[in-house]
């Protein structure tokens, strides 16, 4: 018996029945196109699932990109330390130690650092000559700053020089002024060492600032050495405490911010609070997780519903097309040929749904992006993977119907 079976198998094997890949493809496609309306409705769930998935990823990437754009290098390398102790005090206080600049300079990753504050006057008057009348006096903001603060602020000079450690150490009456202030005071040249009077005190103007990216207010007023301000007008007023500006290396801001209060006031670090720019990676993470977990879950549910839809339609098709299955078996199809065909049909449905969904997702991302005048950001791998995910969903959804199809008894199916 076994020998006879082997012998007969040898005789037939040369002409085994087959289903070529190309035939499989065209048969599956023909099966789907028989009922285009039903096929279209079937893939709706997959379209929704894949589409919302791509749109969510695209929108969150785009939004994160917008957040990232606001992190220019200037902000990302800046730490501001404020004097919380002074802000809560009732009398003029300065919680920064005298050697604050030098202490912070020693922290790894710091490029420049310095203390500054806005001097509060009962009668803030700046004039270019002594004893000027009310009409010739200007009410200008006066800032006290260490040389380190000027360096950290990135001040660019139009003329002259910035004050330095010498002026600071000896509390010299020198000032630097902004370009607009210089024009208001009628100072165009520094060659005659022009003097200005702040609250009656004479100061020599040694520099005119063209721009100051981190402390733009210096541009609009008068800046004097911190020691001079302290000598003439005392510590910062209560509630208007001093600040420290720190210019760090790229990426060091968070670490420096954590170290500064302890480095300056090991006795009571709580008097100072350091603010670093938000960490871009943390922010991106926060955006992705908090906003999108729910939506991704919804997309996943839509995808599952889509898979169930495909499975249901394919199963109905198997029952409806029992006659066709019987015919194909009679024409020489093996059970696996039948199963593969239905599997190919469901996979094609999923793939098609994935393609349409990915297109709609990209379109949604684009529309929202254009509406907000953003720059669209979408990982091409996500767009390319979306149809494949659809195909896998279709494949999984088709497994059970395909199994049913391959188990159809041809004799019974043909009798219908």
């Amino acid at each position, binding site marked *: 018996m076994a020998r006879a079976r082997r012998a007969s*198998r040898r005789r037939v*094997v040369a002409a085994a029945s087959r*289903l070529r890949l190309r035939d499989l493809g065209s048969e599956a496609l023909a099966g789907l196109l028989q009922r285009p309306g039903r096929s279209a409705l079937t893939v709706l769930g997959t379209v929704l699932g894949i589409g919302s998935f791509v749109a969510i990823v695209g929108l969150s990437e785009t939004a994160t990109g917008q957040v990232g754009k606001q992190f220019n290098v200037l902000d990302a390398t800046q730490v501001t330390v404020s004097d919380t102790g002074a802000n809560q005090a009732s009398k003029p206080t300065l919680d920064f130690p005298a050697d604050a600049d030098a202490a912070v300079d020693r922290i790894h990753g710091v490029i420049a650092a310095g203390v500054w504050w806005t001097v509060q006057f009962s009668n803030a008057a700046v004039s270019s000559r002594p004893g000027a009348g009310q009409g010739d006096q200007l009410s200008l903001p006066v800032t006290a700053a260490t040389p380190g603060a000027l360096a950290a602020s990135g001040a660019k000079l139009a003329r002259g020089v910035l004050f330095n450690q010498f002026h600071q150490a000896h509390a010299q009456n020198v000032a630097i002024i902004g370009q607009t202030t210089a024009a208001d005071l009628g100072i165009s040249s520094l060659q005659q060492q022009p003097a200005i009077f702040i609250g009656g005190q004479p100061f020599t103007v040694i520099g005119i600032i063209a721009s100051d990216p981190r402390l733009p207010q210096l541009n609009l007023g008068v800046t004097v050495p911190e020691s001079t301000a302290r000598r003439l007008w005392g510590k910062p007023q209560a509630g208007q405490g001093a600040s420290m500006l720190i210019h760090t290396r790229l990426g060091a801001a968070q670490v420096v911010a954590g170290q500064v209060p302890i480095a300056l006031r090991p006795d009571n670090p709580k008097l100072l609070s350091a603010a670093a720019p938000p960490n871009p990676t943390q922010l991106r993470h926060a955006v992705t997780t908090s906003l999108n977990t729910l939506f991704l879950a919804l997309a996943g549910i839509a995808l599952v519903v889509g898979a169930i839809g495909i499975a249901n339609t394919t199963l109905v098709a198997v029952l409806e097309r029992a006659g066709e299955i019987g*015919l194909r*078996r009679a024409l*020489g199809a*093996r059970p696996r040929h039948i199963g593969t065909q239905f599997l190919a049909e469901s996979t094609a449905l999923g793939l098609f749904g994935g393609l349409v969904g990915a297109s709609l997702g990209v379109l949604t991302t684009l529309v929202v992006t254009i509406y907000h005048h953003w720059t669209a950001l979408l990982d091409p791998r996500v767009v390319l993977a979306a149809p494949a995910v659809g195909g896998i969903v279709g494949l999984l959804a088709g497994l059970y119907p395909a199994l049913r199809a391959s188990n159809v008894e041809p*004799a019974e199916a043909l009798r*219908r």
Partner: protein
Amino acid sequence: MTTAAVAPPVIRLSAVAFTYAGPPPVRALHPMDLVIWRGEHVAITGPSGSGKSTLLNLLGLLDRPTEGTLEIDGIDVGSASERDRAAVRAHRIGFVFQSFHLLPHRTSAENVMLAQVYADLPRRRRPGAAMAALTQVGLEHRAHALPTALSGGERQRVAIARALVNHPSLLLCDEPTGNLDTATTKELNDLLGSLHEGGTTLVVITHNPAVAGHAERRIAIRDGQLVEPENDMPAGREGERGARPAG
């Protein structure tokens, strides 16, 4: 017959029986012997419930005999693997059904070509072969019509073209005129007659006497047993076993 020694019979049943697994088990076919030679035109008749359909399913390899051996072209298909049985169906058996079983969304030519998919004919040769088969049944002018645009007789001829396209050893027809009127039945009889004259081996299962009458050999089946009039035995083959109950 020298040819008999070279070419095995198209169909050989040796003590073939079929029992539907119960519960309770039902004996549909009692052990029977039957030999059908190449080029024969055989009609198998019998009332419903006689075992006709069961015999057809066995001959068409849609079911396996529960006892005995069944050979098609000398191949023991009763015990062959499902893979080999599918191959025999694809290459050696052409089916014609009472309800035609044409795919409604495909043209006549495409329906014929479906049979070539599993027989693995190269794609570029399929349209030509399909057209030749349609010409053989006189429907070449309807090659691109959908079944819905065809008359019943035309549909059955498309089905016959599909059954013929792979040049099978055996054309197995199950009530081919069951859905046709008298005039169309006559046309179909003529077509089957001409196919027989062309050398095709025909086995027609029918309860229509007009169809059975055209066959050169008639086998009746009653209660799962074969009954064949002696004078219907093919001339010169008296020594061979025809149809008779085994044992």
